[in-house]
């Protein structure tokens, strides 16, 4: 026990031997301290800075607003505010807001509440009135699914019960709730309702689900048509009328396809009602490329099916004035697309059907009607009450005015079983009250700071991280497991479903990565539906560095020395030629061969190298139950072709490979994906012939696994461009009739000088000619790298542009192989043209790029404001070759 006590004094890592974190003798109740923070006790009760630092506060919703400041008041109807203020714990069981008015006598109380409501409503600023909204049934269903899968239900365990949703139905409107869901931190900076990164569409859907109880009986007719949009291969007959598998369902205002969509392989169904103004004979015109159909009152009126160019078809029928069902279907397979519906009828000239005549069946959501007008006099009285009853302490940050925290009596005031009038009444059960009393009883010890490991635990309880994440003996309730859902076919077991444990994360992650994860909720696990939300800077503070202080194993700090050879060995080890990381891990955006585990290209910036190497050695030591395999068993050598079979060096090689990040060349073994057009070279270079913008209609592009790519102009007989990153998207050349001009998909495009790269000059000063070098064809070496054959006068040049791997990304090497029938001295290569070309040691600098030439004799010549970097080609006689004079020059570009 003596050792244990010493260990505690030195920090818990020394441990007590049972693996459980020991309790700090000065930390009497971690639950109590979290409750003190969440109850915002220090808003009323003054405390020294050290205590405040330790306890923190969880900011209350911002109520005071105005023209430019959002106020939480705008989220609520005045009716709800009135009821809530009168009895907060009845209206919203479990709320952390205390009842501040419980001591006010009945008759007086309703007046105070009303004054407060007027004051609060005066703060709502320009917030829109709580009006009605029309939503589609699909939105409600989608909202329900989101609510239950992305993480809402983890905290809001009762919100999808009917009773809770009935309460909400009277509290707010669809527009206000959706706005709040999109950006909760704007009005609720405390972070207890974090930002779930919802799109507008998602927020609308969740709000529609939560307010479903506002719907009136029966459907209502709302403006616009119900649109079902399908993105998938489309047959010549379009999409069946009963096909429910739409990509999106939404409301569209007109009979057209003017909404974000793709240009080929899509279908659209527009359904609803058309209002016929006068009884009579109507003619409908349907125009489309490709197919379409139109039905009125459930009967097909026009069938213009098939895959065809644009044309019109029409049909007429008699219609009574009033609402008639209309359904139009349109589909596009390939090529041009056009879709138009027009009508003509009694007194109506042919033209599009006006939007105001189109309706769909919608669910109407409306809060109870309300006609509230702020009474300035009452609002003024309310402002006084806001201060007098202590609301201002939390909601305005007024200076503490109650008894200092350190002087509190744990049995009295708000901690009394029955709080006296004047003291706010919190919803504390006996256990909670006991733990808060425990904190109060030991208030004097609160001024000593907590050890980092406890600071982390306090934060996890304060912000309810523990609802999702385990760490040490903190564990999410088992029943929460039901709310964590994997996406689609990801067969990752619980690892693909449950939020990760936070054990050791300060050791595992680089501090920057951890900070961005906590502040922004960066998503690295695409296979999990549950989202990591943002809690906001105010709530998170310096939690990331606290994790590091708590967890870091100093052995894991530091970097691994980079060499290109090591990185390339790592590439082979990551591929099917090695331990095959690509079997499970996404690789630089390319799907793995199996499950979609975390992208290899994101690991280097997230993980600490030392942790990674130790993890790779024995993954389950760090993550019990991980599906990650232990590849290197002690005393066993694998993959002797790499790093001399040295396991430590092999793991470092993989790390070096990962360190290339998004410049990571794909490892061997990844397969291309049919139906997708991005070309991603992995094992061999990809050669792609196309029309290239600003180059020529005969351009041969070469994509290399090392992620430096080139475009060779076969028409102009010259290397035109090189670039980094992604290679090409072939859609414009391979999709439909194609024929689009393509551009590099990647970045950092290096433009080569216009005109021929090679010329025969009578002298070093002779002007550079404009006549192109003639393209003679292409060779492929054993690694399938192409060389481009050129005729330069009576001489031949083969140019091989290819990457050479360097730390942080590859350089471009242009290998120039020239041949001549006799010893010639008049062949030159022009490797750069620019305003200024400067020598830089052995290299040359031209407009931000460095050029290195492995042959002596390169020179810069200048004429006017144009400088040229020329390399004279020096031939050597090579026995047994034809033609017998040969030269090879390597020109490297770093840019």
């Amino acid at each position, binding site marked *: 026990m003596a050792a244990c006590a010493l260990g505690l004094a030195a920090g818990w890592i020394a441990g007590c031997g049972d693996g459980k974190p020991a309790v700090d003798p000065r930390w009497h109740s971690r639950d109590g301290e979290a409750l003190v923070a969440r109850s915002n006790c220090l808003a009323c009760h003054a405390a020294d800075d050290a205590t405040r630092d330790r306890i923190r506060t969880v900011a209350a919703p911002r109520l005071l607003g105005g023209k430019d400041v959002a106020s939480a008041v705008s989220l609520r109807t005045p009716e709800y505010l009135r009821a809530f203020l009168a009895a907060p714990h009845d209206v919203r069981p479990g709320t952390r807001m205390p009842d501040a008015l419980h001591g006010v006598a009945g008759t007086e109380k309703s007046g105070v509440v009303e004054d407060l409501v007027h004051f609060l409503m005066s703060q709502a600023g320009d917030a829109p009135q709580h009006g009605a909204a029309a939503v589609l049934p699909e939105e409600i269903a989608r909202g329900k699914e989101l609510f239950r899968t992305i993480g809402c239900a983890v905290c809001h365990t009762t919100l999808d019960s009917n009773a809770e949703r009935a309460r909400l139905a009277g509290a707010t409107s669809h527009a206000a709730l959706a706005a709040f869901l999109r950006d909760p931190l704007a009005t609720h900076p405390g972070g207890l309702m974090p930002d779930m990164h919802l799109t507008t569409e998602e927020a609308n859907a969740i709000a529609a689900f939560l307010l479903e109880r506002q719907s009136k009986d029966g459907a209502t007719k709302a403006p616009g048509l119900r649109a079902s949009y399908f993105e998938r291969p489309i047959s*010549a007959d379009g999409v069946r009328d009963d096909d429910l598998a739409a990509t999106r369902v939404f409301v569209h205002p007109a009979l057209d396809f003017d909404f974000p969509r793709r240009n080929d392989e899509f279908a659209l169904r527009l359904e609803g009602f058309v209002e016929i103004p006068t009884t009579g004979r109507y003619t409908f015109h349907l125009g489309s490329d490709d197919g379409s159909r139109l039905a009125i009152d459930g009967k097909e009126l026009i069938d213009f099916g098939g*895959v065809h160019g644009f044309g019109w078809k029409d049909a007429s029928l008699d219609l009574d004035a009033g609402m008639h069902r209309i359904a139009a279907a349109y589909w596009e*397979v*390939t*090529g041009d697309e056009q879709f138009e519906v027009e009508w003509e009828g009694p007194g109506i000239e042919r033209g599009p059907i006006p939007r105001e005549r189109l309706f769909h069946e919608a669910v109407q959501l409306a809060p109870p009607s309300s006609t509230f007008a702020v009474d300035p006099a009452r609002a003024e009285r309310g402002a006084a009450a806001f201060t007098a009853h202590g609301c201002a302490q939390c909601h305005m940050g007024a200076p503490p005015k109650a008894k200092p925290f350190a002087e509190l009596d744990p049995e009295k005031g708000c901690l009394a079983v029955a709080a006296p009038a004047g003291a706010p009444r919190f919803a504390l059960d006996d256990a909670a009250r006991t733990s808060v009393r425990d904190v109060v009883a030991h208030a004097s010890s609160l001024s000593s700071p907590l050890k980092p490991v406890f600071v982390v635990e306090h934060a996890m309880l304060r912000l309810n991280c523990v609802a999702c994440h385990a760490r040490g003996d903190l564990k999410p309730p088992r029943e929460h497991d039901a709310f964590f859902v994997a996406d689609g076919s990801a067969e990752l077991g619980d690892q693909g479903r449950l939020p990760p444990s936070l054990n050791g994360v300060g050791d595992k992650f680089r501090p920057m990565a951890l900070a961005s994860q906590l502040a922004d909720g960066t998503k690295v696990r695409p296979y999990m539906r549950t989202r990591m939300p943002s809690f906001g800077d105010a709530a998170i503070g310096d939690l990331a560095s606290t994790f590091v202080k708590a967890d870091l194993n100093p052995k894991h700090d530091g970097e691994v020395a980079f060499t290109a050879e090591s990185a390339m060995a790592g590439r082979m080890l990551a591929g099917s030629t090695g331990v095959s990381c690509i079997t499970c891990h996404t690789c630089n955006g390319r799907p793995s061969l199996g499950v979609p585990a975390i992208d290899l290209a994101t690991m280097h910036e997230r993980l600490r190298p030392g942790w990674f190497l130790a993890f790779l050695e024995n993954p389950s030591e760090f993550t019990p139950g991980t599906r990650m395999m232990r590849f290197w068993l002690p005393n066993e050598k694998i993959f002797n072709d790499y790093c001399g079979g040295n396991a430590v060096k092999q793991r470092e090689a993989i790390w070096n490979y990962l360190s290339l990040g998004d410049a990571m060349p794909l490892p061997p073994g990844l*397969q*291309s*994906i*049919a139906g997708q057009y991005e070309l991603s070279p992995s094992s061999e270079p*990809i*050669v*792609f*012939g*196309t*029309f290239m913008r600003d180059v*020529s*209609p*005969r351009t*041969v*592009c*070469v994509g290399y696994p090392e992620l430096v790519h080139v475009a060779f102009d*076969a*028409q102009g007989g010259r290397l035109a461009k090189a670039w980094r990153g992604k290679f090409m998207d*072939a859609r414009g*050349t*391979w*999709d*439909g*009739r*194609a*024929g689009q*001009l393509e551009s590099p998909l990647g970045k950092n495009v290096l433009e080569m000088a216009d005109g021929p790269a090679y010329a025969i000059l009578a002298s070093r000063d002779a002007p550079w000619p404009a006549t192109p070098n003639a*393209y*003679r*064809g*292409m*060779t*492929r070496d054993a690694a399938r790298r*192409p060389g481009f*054959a050129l005729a330069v006068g009576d001489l031949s040049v083969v140019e091989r542009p290819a990457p050479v791997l360097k730390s942080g990304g590859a350089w471009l090497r242009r290998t120039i192989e020239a041949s001549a029938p006799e010893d010639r001295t008049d062949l030159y290569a022009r490797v750069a043209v620019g305003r200024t070309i400067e020598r830089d040691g052995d290299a040359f600098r031209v407009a931000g790029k460095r050029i290195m030439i492995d042959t002596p004799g390169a020179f810069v010549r200048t004429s006017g404001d144009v400088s040229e970097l020329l390399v004279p080609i020096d031939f050597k006689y090579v026995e047994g070759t034809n033609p017998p004079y040969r030269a090879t020059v390597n020109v490297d570009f770093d840019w």
Partner: protein
Amino acid sequence: MLSASLLVAAAILAQTPREEDFYRIETLKLPDEVVLEVGGILPLDESRVMACTRRGEVWTITNPWSEKPIFTLAFDGLQEPLGLAAPEGVGKGKPIYVAQRGELSRMFDDDGDWRIDRLETVCSDWSISGNYHEYAFGPAIDKNGDFWITLNRPFGSEPFGPKDWRGWAVRVTRDGAAHYDVAGLRSPCGVAASPDGEIFYTDNQGEWCPTNKLAVLQRGEFHGHPHGIDSAKRPESNVEHPGAIPDGILMPDAVKRIPHLRLPAVWFPYDKMGKSASGLAWDTTGGKFGPFEGQIFVGDQHHGSVMRVALEKVGDEWQGACFPFRMNFQCGIVRVAFLPDGSLAVGETNRGWGSRGTKPWGLERCVWTGVMPFEIHTMHATPSGFRLWFTKPVDRTSAADPASYSCKTYTYELHERYGSDEMDTQPATVKSATVSDDGLTVDLAIDGLREGYVHELVAGGVRSADKIPLLHADAYYTLNKRPK
């Protein structure tokens, strides 16, 4: 009992002869990652076939018709290659010629691993503007060993500027020189040499091309489409400029008014005989493909079908009949080629131009089952009508009855509008039908024969000696010239 069931089977067969009873279709099994939009087919040996694709890849496919074919990427980076040819045979170091959009190239496998190691530009004399429709089809190799390539006209934007020689057939000699021999083509998707080394091509209906057609390519001739005709003013042209082309003139008149206008050997009446004629191949299988040795098999990209053509030469004029042959391939057909085993390989794609069928691309082959179909084998013009050869002896009664036949004639109009209706349609009267002693030929005497017209004959009443109706009763003979 056995004979009874055979009788039943024969009776069913007699009712409904089906194409698949005589020619079955086998489909190459493709892995997910191979997009085989076939632009050219080259049989390599008994177990290998090479295909180039619209994506610019060249694949060597080993054991293509087995459960597990092996795919080897032989080359990539070509621009829309639409034909392969190996005039010196295939193997290590032997050139394989391919037409790309902007050049005729030849490819070499220098080490015999069925992958291409080297590509040489043979000719890039013509240019492209960067328009999707500027395809180059071929090469077909004529009796002199020259390479023929047909060049599409562009539609729409020409980002690198309009170019000469679009809508021409270019002949490239061994030295790489280009000879611009024939003008007036539209979208000449198929080009091939007859066994005698004459070059024929197919073209696609549209403006100035009234319906799909098959025609011979001969130096100095014009085929009716004026898009690229001003290139004829260039000194390299081997075609005399035909002057202004009248818009809206029946073909029999057009051939009299437009200098050097070449009429097609066969019109493919629209929809009856496909909608988009493509690759063509002569049956030189020596009977392995059935009874049609020497005839031409033509793919159709829209219908996903193969048609059959039997040509004859009357005077200087090629002409003949086309027949339906086989439908229900999995996709539109762009290329056809006979394999060493006598089956017909068809290369498929529906990209950009929709087609019948269920697949977007692929390679299939059509194999004779060995059962003789009852078909009109050949239709030849005679001074008084037509002589029909049948593949099997006919039932003398039905075949001798003029009422078993119906015939009508029509022609087309040359105009700028897209496609032509059948024009000036008139009935022709079958006066008599005379059956030969062996029952294999029937001479029809017909009133109302017209030069420059398609003669659509339906022999719906004819039965074979074993009372089976024709598998395909219709035939379409383009009568450019009546034999004397």
